[in-house]
């Protein structure tokens, strides 16, 4: 069984981005870029499935600018077997990404596509669901546990009131939530080995996918900042403030 893992190159999760002063976007130039944290979890889960003998091949794919190959090398250093870079603009929309992935699924014929639940830059939380829709496959989103058996995937999902388990016929789409696993660090020898693993580069247009954006960004603004608060000296003072000043208790 083959697993396809889409990985996105995003601003590292530790960095607080700043809005550009002209309000056209956020400043990303010169910032540390990393693999989207949820995608690391997806890569890890796919590798574990291969290590357990459930999967035979793990293919990482990224859609974006040339530098996204660094993200793919990271995925291969973690253990992915090979990777595909589909060149496009920086941060294409989920609809376009889902269409590219659909084209790759038709070419590679994986039994499972394992995505992150959400990219931490656009915070869309949409691509996996959209790809599942386009393919007519079942979807197990926000997965915290995955078991593959008898041609089905049993997925425990994080929902608002707790957890839910669904069973999906393969092929299927799964999106990883935070608690699925703890991704491994790539060791130095594996980073060296990853440099020799195959990385194919193709143009989005060669897949016949229209990447035109449906959403135009009119402006980007800084959220309202909270006015500075105070440090209180004691519990009694806090209770007094909450009662008499804030009037919330």
């Amino acid at each position, binding site marked *: 069984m083959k697993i396809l893992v889409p990985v996105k190159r995003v601003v590292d999760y530790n960095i607080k981005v700043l809005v550009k002063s002209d309000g056209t976007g956020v400043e990303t130039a010169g910032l540390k870029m990393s693999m989207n944290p949820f995608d690391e979890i997806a890569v890890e889960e796919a590798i574990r499935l291969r290590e357990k003998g459930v999967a035979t091949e793990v293919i990482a794919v990224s859609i974006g600018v040339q530098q996204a190959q660094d993200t793919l090398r990271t995925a291969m250093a973690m253990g992915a077997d090979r990777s595909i870079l589909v060149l496009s603009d920086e941060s294409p929309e989920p609809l376009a990404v889902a269409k590219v992935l659909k084209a790759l699924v038709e070419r590679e014929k994986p039994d499972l596509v394992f995505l992150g639940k959400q990219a931490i830059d656009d915070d869309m939380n949409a691509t996996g669901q959209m790809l599942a829709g*386009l393919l007519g496959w079942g979807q197990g989103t926000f997965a915290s546990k995955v078991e593959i058996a008898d041609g089905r995937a049993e997925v425990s999902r*994080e929902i608002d009131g707790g957890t839910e388990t669904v069973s999906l016929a393969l092929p299927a789409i799964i999106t990883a939530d935070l608690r699925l696993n703890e991704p491994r660090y790539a060791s130095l020898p594996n980073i060296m080995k990853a440099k020799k693993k195959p990385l194919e580069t193709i143009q989005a247009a060669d897949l016949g996918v229209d990447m035109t954006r449906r959403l135009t960004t009119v402006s980007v603004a800084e959220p309202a900042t909270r006015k500075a608060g105070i440090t209180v000296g004691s519990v009694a003072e806090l209770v007094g403030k909450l009662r008499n000043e804030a009037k919330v208790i």
Partner: protein
Amino acid sequence: MTVLVLVETEAGQIRQASRSAITAATKLGDVHALVVGDAAGADEAAALTAKVPGVAKVLKAGADVLAHELAEPVADLIVSLAEGYSHIVAASTAVGKNILPRAAALLDVQPIPDVVGIVDADTFVRPIYAGNALATVKSSDAKKVLTVRATSFEPAPAEGGSAPVEAVNAAVQDTVSRFVSAQTPTSDRPELEAARVIVSGGRGLGSAENFNALLEPLADKLGAAIGASRVAVDSGYAPNDFQVGQTGKIVAPELYIAVGISGAIQHLAGMKDSKVIVAINKDAEAPILQVADYALVGDLFQIVPELTKDL
């Protein structure tokens, strides 16, 4: 313009988040509310939803395959009903986020998740980068598919309206996915997203025992819901549905008390719109203090019991 809103019910009530979605939808046009469930569930949900002021019509889809709000059949149902609607809306809940993007893809539409502001029929405001920026985006799609953040729209009242109910043909099949089970423990506490007060705990609590022993009495006193940071959830102090943040629940209560939480951007993303924030932390440099209205710097193991006693 007519707007189709997917409404969720739970334990004999319309979810507050869905009532907020109805409020958002009324800003866009006439509201038709879609309720799904098995036959009995759909009947009950329809009766409840018909009473929400602002709902012009309730579409009721009852079928066994819809009982658990699985994305595959519900998205197909939405697509089958989509004609004639300018917008398709749901709350940004686990259900809304699971279903709407799938329906959008089937309609060849780029969805607009987590809307916090409506500028006009095509233009919406949504947070990006964990809420560190607010993007105003204009959609060129003929039909708009959006999920809305409950904290940004006042919930419509639960009572006062009397909309007609129309049964819709729910001839959708589910072949690829199957519901197996759900673990959704009930609690006497208010739902996190609907709570007026939230007491939230982080790594500083040190263990599940401490988490419960300190936060439960405080929450009891305040009639509060209990929340948690990711570390508290990952460490097993609290269940996953307690997590507040970029990838957990987005909350905006009147009062949010953060206990032993440092205030990482991913946590702040979920609670910084709370009306009043209290931080209890031993580290005077913790980032949570920068968003707190009232900070108490010290050992939570002393402060929390004392606070519980003084309230």
